[in-house]
């Protein structure tokens, strides 16, 4: 009998977890992982910690080479998938064509710089990969680099900002929306967080955007130049570097139009199957059940990538063994959960901040914390919590864990 092949496209959190689940569920056939990244994946959550000096390079890799080796995966590192042919069950890559029986798409997402003006001779920094983190680290290490502009107000922007602050840089944050964390926080929580950022010495320029960037030659400055940034509100300021965090985009370019059902990402069922029964998706490329809305959405967090990868791997192992996939393997759906620490500031959120006529908001301020609760009737559907006193941080974590559980339990 010909050996079966499971192809994993992308070998980050979701891909590794798919491989783990395949092996844990008795699959002994070939696993082929194709990745344009390294054979041993890094944690994108930790890259900013490396840039900021909180983690060593080695500490950013959640799995060792020995651990990855023990999964017995054939890894094509530094290899890009150019196209998937779902009818022929093949992948066309920069290293040749490969056949598969089942395929897991786990290509993740990449930062976008959309909205940042094209500047000849200048590329802004972004934050996702180890190379991105290294670039920020290198820039910060140069004594001539003193002033950095971070554009964006998301979690990634704030972690980039923290890395810059830890490196002793003078940081300004510019955000299009009136508040930071606009995808995760309601204004009361965001304002408290912003006060904390300002207390750390960060300058905030919210509700405006970068209108233009001009490169000015200056022998005494970082890389022999300075950046003259014009903001949409008319302000003009000089910076040594700019880092852009304008969101993420799922990596799906290799999927021919119409071959798989795609909304913002690949639509999947409870076993992470796409519209083609032999192709699965997990992580930032998958639109799976989000429990509060009841819709299929991208919830791009580490745990989802891990659980969805594991779900796909388990389901494939059963299917290739000719067995029905047990309900226990299903992805139960998720809610958005986020925790971010920036200096002494801690922000925790879970659930939704989408408001409608059925939802009400309660704000509660106690000790060194501010909590915003979102209720639908009597049911908690979301919360934000900001803690700016390190002494209360443990309590904030406990309260955050407690509230997250309440939301999850109510959904069950």
């Amino acid at each position, binding site marked *: 009998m010909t050996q079966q092949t499971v192809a994993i496209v992308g070998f980050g959190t979701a891909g590794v*977890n798919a491989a*783990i*689940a395949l092996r*844990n569920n008795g699959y002994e056939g070939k696993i082929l992982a194709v990745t344009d990244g390294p054979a041993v994946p890094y944690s994108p959550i930790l890259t900013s910690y490396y840039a900021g000096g909180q983690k060593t390079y080695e500490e950013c890799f*959640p799995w*060792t080479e020995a651990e990855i080796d023990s999964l017995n995966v054939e890894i094509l590192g530094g290899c890009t998938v150019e196209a998937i042919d779902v009818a022929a069950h093949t992948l066309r890559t920069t290293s040749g064509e490969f056949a598969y029986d089942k395929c897991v798409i786990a290509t993740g997402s990449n930062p976008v710089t959309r909205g940042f003006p094209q500047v000849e001779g200048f590329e802004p920094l972004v934050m996702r990969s180890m190379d991105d983190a290294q670039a920020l680290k290198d820039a910060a290490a140069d004594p001539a680099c003193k002033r950095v502009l971070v554009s964006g107000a998301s979690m990634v922007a704030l972690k980039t900002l923290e890395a810059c602050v830890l490196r002793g840089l003078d940081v300004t944050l510019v955000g299009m929306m009136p508040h930071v964390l606009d995808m995760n926080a309601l204004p009361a929580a965001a304002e408290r967080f912003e006060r904390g950022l300002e207390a750390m010495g960060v300058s905030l320029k919210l509700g405006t955007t970068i209108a233009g960037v001009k490169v000015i030659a200056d022998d005494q400055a970082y890389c022999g130049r300075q950046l003259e940034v014009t903001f949409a509100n008319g302000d003009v300021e000089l910076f040594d570097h700019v880092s852009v965090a304008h969101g993420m985009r799922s990596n799906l370019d290799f999927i021919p139009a119409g071959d798989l059902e795609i909304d913002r990402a690949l639509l999947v069922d409870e076993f992470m199957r796409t519209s083609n029964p032999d192709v699965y998706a997990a992580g930032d490329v998958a639109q799976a059940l989000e429990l509060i809305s009841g819709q299929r959405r991208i919830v791009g967090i580490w745990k989802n990538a891990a659980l969805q990868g594991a779900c796909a791997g388990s389901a494939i192992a059963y299917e290739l063994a000719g067995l029905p996939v047990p309900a226990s393997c299903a992805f139960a759906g998720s809610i958005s959960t986020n925790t971010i620490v920036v200096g002494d500031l801690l922000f925790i959120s879970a659930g939704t901040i989408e408001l409608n006529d059925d939802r009400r908001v309660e704000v509660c301020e106690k000790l060194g914390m501010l909590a915003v609760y979102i209720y639908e009737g009597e049911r908690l559907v979301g919360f934000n919590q900001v803690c700016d006193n390190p002494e209360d941080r443990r309590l904030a974590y406990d309260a955050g*864990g407690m509230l997250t559980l309440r939301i999850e339990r109510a959904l069950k």
Partner: protein
Amino acid sequence: MGLLKHADVYWKFMGQCTQCGYCKGACSSLENNELTLGGIARAMLDAERGASTIEDLRDAILVNAPLVNAVRGCFFCTSCKNTCFAHNDVCDLIYHARVDFLNLGLIPRESYSSVLVDQEWDIFTAYRAIHGIGYSDLTRHKATETSEAASDCEIAFFPGCSLAAYGPELTREIFACLEECGAGKVTMLDSCCGSSLKSAGFFERAEALCDRNASEIDAAGAKQLVCVCPGCANDMKRALGVRGMDIQVTSLSAFLAEHGFEMKKPLPETPLVFSKSCQNRDGSYLDETRAILGVGEETPAVFKGCCGAGGAVSAFNPDRQAEQADMKLSFVPDGSTVVTMCPTCTYTYAFRQMMSPRDIQSKHYTELLFENQFDWEKVFAQLGGMWYGEYGPWLAQVFN
């Protein structure tokens, strides 16, 4: 299958851990042993990878003192999980590590012999037998010499091991009150939720005990299970849920509030400080207890993880248990009454108070609601004394 029975659990955890290290700051055991939760999973798998026999594996784990300390020093308080970006399930990890430890002979079975609550004799049943504490008249779903087994009980009352053993009058008073509520016939489930078995690594035995409890509830015909302790409520909710039983698990406080209960006496005049039970994972028990006592959020609560009694840590490292209890009590100001939700927390604090007295009162919330009280002085005297009196040789034989 490899040498570790639960290698799949460690792999699963490894897959989900970012290795960010935040969990270390939430737990003195992880911090002292310089291990993250993912590091525990990694160390277990590393040991297996380097071993060709069970003996090799056992030796590899045994020489890794930080691993042994971290696995056995866990209270299951989930403080680490709360700091985890991914909210990874520490309990699943440590429970299975303890099962593997037990299978490998790394946990001496005799260290837990007194809390193997699925056997005829454990510390609670022995204490009750010696001191004549029994509830056969209240366990109505079981036949006695004078009565048939009832199968039409609406309510099953679950006091838990500590309350049933050390507070018999209080247990009976609560039972009587439940009957007076008029919600239907009440029976008492005189059993354990199995948490001590799980803590010791006897996961399958704990599940078997849950099966037994579920069967009893089914036989009683109960629609609702009223739990005194949040830990019991957690375990029973999970156990009944996975068995597909549609039984409403309710805290005693919520049940009493729903049935218009009035407190039997005024609250103490000393300031109250709640000790949030770590088993009260979502905090609902704390809210319900505050509500039935008629106090609001202005009455403070100490979180800070476990009281020290969780995870059977005392059987491995009694000093760690004492330090944890003292740490948590250190947030209770002198002159206050610390109000607990789990009777085992009450026991633990009372014990610490006996060892190093402070000007604080330790009360279980039921002691504030009802007339009867725990008499800890008497309980500790009886617990200590029973090893030396006429039952001493029998106890020594049973528990060694």
